[in-house]
């Protein structure tokens, strides 16, 4: 098909170039126009030439408009044909076709949403519905299908067939299953039964248990050959009714990382007896911890949360348990350190207690272990004086994190802690506390108590002091999405521009980062 533009169009004059005036008064013209009066002869002689001229020009304009319409039609036709051609070429030449399979696979793996309740609207399901090639690549990549997250606290129902299909496409499974005693237990149990049929390919399981779920879970005992990580939690005290103990993890030959969280009652949980365990976190009486620590010499990380044995005195320490590989430890009670020795320990997080002198337990532990501490995290309502003493005694500690948490949620108490820490760590002519600290982090749960000005003053003073090593600081506010005041923010920005890594996080990310200070396992299903 050949397309050709029309030849030169006639010049269209501007309206003002015509003389359309009639040499009669406006009033007379209006009178003639709005009545049926017959014009007089001399008036006809004036009006007729102008009328002829107008008629002729209108005809000319109409002809031109018609011609242009024809031309526009041709252009539209040409545009339409070319667009079809362009679309065809663009489709054929699409760079996406040339992306090698291995790159597309890699890209697919990064397209997975971080919190993936199963939905065919999300990756990997939507990727498998684009084209035959994409589907083949997605189905061939079993890792895309291995993460299953089911949250029954959201009052959602999930398709058994969909989960079953996903499992069949996966080689191993990483499961997050949030049970809820407030939701109907039948769909939860049915879904768990489907997952349990494939327990031999579980690599990770994070499960919030209810009474109804414990019974079927027992079926996986001895059928978890690949399980490496486990997180058990209870959905409130009701969920623990009539359950005496948990033993389905007892035979899990690959299990290296266990978290058992219970804030309500102690739930005896039998861990596998082997030396593969490199990490555990457990809310349990001290006696249980002691036995676990004795039987787990290869621990790299541990969270010792003593609970459910209030009033039971600490036993007389005997030969310390030597944890030769332990690098990070959290203790809810610093007295736990009296029973341990950890020669390669680098990081320690301690929950401060009002009537317990942290140093009197920490010092003998560090001496006994001959470890070189690098990072200290103080949790709760730590005392600035004792924190300062620890830092002075162990100059190898170059990172300090302070996680302020008041169990009674007293805002003033949190505020008071910050009011003591920020000025105390501010460098002045008279005070130079721990200039060797290179990273100084704070987390506070109530945004309204943050004295931002004091915080930035502290950073500023340490940044400017010539012998201060501070290069980074994080301020974490998990319970807010509110920015600091503009002036403080601007000052933080200035410090950043100067080279200090000032970080301000809020919301869920802040909570996750603070959890890492105390070695809460991260579950990114």
């Amino acid at each position, binding site marked *: 098909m050949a397309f050709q533009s029309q030849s030169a169009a006639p010049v269209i004059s501007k309206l003002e170039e015509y003389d359309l005036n009639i040499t009669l008064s406006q009033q007379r013209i209006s009178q003639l126009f709005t009545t049926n009066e017959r014009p007089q002869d001399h008036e006809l002689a004036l009006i007729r030439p102008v009328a002829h001229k107008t008629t002729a020009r209108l005809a000319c304009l109409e002809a031109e408009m018609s011609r242009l319409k024809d031309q526009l039609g041709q252009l539209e036709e040409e545009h339409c044909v070319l667009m079809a051609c362009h679309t065809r070429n663009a489709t054929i030449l699409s760079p996406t076709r040339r992306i090698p399979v291995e790159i597309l696979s890699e*890209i697919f793996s990064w*397209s997975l949403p971080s919190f993936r309740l199963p939905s065919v609207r999300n990756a990997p399901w939507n990727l498998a519905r684009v084209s035959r090639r994409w589907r083949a690549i997605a189905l061939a990549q079993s890792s895309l299908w291995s993460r299953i997250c089911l949250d029954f606290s959201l009052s959602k129902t*999930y398709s058994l067939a969909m989960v079953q299909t996903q499992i069949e496409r996966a080689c191993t499974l990483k499961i997050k299953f949030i049970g809820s005693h407030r939701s109907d237990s039948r769909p939860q149990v049915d879904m768990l039964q489907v997952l349990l049929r494939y327990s031999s390919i579980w690599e990770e399981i994070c499960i919030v248990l209810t009474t109804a779920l414990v019974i079927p879970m027992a079926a996986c005992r001895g059928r978890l050959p690949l399980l490496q990580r486990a997180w058990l939690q209870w959905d409130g005290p009701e969920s623990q009714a009539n359950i005496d103990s948990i033993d389905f993890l007892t035979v899990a030959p690959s299990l290296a990382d266990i978290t058992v969280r219970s804030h309500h009652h102690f739930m005896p949980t039998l861990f596998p007896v082997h030396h593969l365990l490199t990490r555990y976190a457990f809310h349990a009486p001290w006696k249980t911890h002691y036995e676990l620590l004795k039987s787990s010499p290869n621990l790299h990380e541990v969270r010792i949360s003593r609970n459910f044995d209030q009033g039971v005195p600490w036993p007389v320490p005997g030969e310390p348990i030597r944890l030769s590989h332990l690098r990070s430890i959290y203790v809810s009670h610093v007295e736990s350190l009296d029973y341990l020795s950890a020669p390669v320990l680098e990081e320690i997080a301690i929950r401060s207690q009002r009537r317990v002198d942290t140093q009197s337990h920490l010092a003998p532990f560090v001496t006994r272990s001959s470890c070189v501490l690098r990072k200290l995290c103080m949790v709760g309502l730590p005392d600035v004086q004792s924190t300062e003493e620890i830092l002075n005694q162990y100059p190898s500690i170059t990172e300090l994190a302070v996680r302020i948490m008041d169990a009674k949620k007293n805002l003033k108490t949190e505020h008071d802690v910050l009011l003591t820490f920020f000025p105390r760590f501010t460098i002045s002519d008279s005070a130079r506390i721990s200039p060797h600290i290179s990273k100084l982090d704070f987390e506070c749960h109530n945004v309204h108590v943050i004295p931002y000005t004091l915080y930035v003053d502290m950073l500023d003073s340490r940044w400017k002091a010539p012998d201060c090593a501070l290069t980074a600081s994080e301020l974490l506010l998990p319970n807010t999405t509110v920015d600091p005041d503009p002036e403080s923010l601007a000052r933080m920005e200035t410090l950043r521009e100067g080279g200090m890594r000032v970080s301000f996080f809020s919301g869920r990310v802040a909570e996750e980062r603070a959890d890492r200070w105390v070695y809460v396992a991260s579950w990114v299903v």
Partner: protein
Amino acid sequence: MVLLVTSDNEQFQTEKDIVERSVLIKNMLEDVGESDQPIPLPNVSSSVLKKVTQPSTGPTEIDVRGRYLSTASTTVESPSRPPILEQSQDETRKRTTDISEWDQKFITVDQEMLFEIILAANYLDIKSLLCRRWLQDGSQHDQGARPPEEIRKLFNIVNDFTPEEEAQIKKENEWAEDR
């Protein structure tokens, strides 16, 4: 500084700690040791290398919130750093689905360039860059949540499913019904 030579024979002086984010270049530097010899990148053109190294103009362009602030409504799971400076997030497999203004400006390239950058990122072995390119393309940010029809339109992909496959997909779609 490291001297890089592109496929069209242009030379780039680049800071060592920046180019070492590329596993390929890092390995090359380790192999040759301290040397003034230029490193040839026969699979990367100058225009692409410019895009890859362009963000190294410095962190001072990004404000404290843009890089480090995260709120419940804007999920920034890792500080938004220039892609070439980005550490691999392989270990955590976390994804960032919200894109900073800085990133938005940076990624405004046509699909052909996007493709070239993806290939270069793969060749240079910069995984995070590879994936950022993908995630940032288009008006929406999260390819993981795009409907297939939109993905086809965006990337000029033909729906070539057989009737049998369509039937299977239709079955999958039924699982999406308001659950």
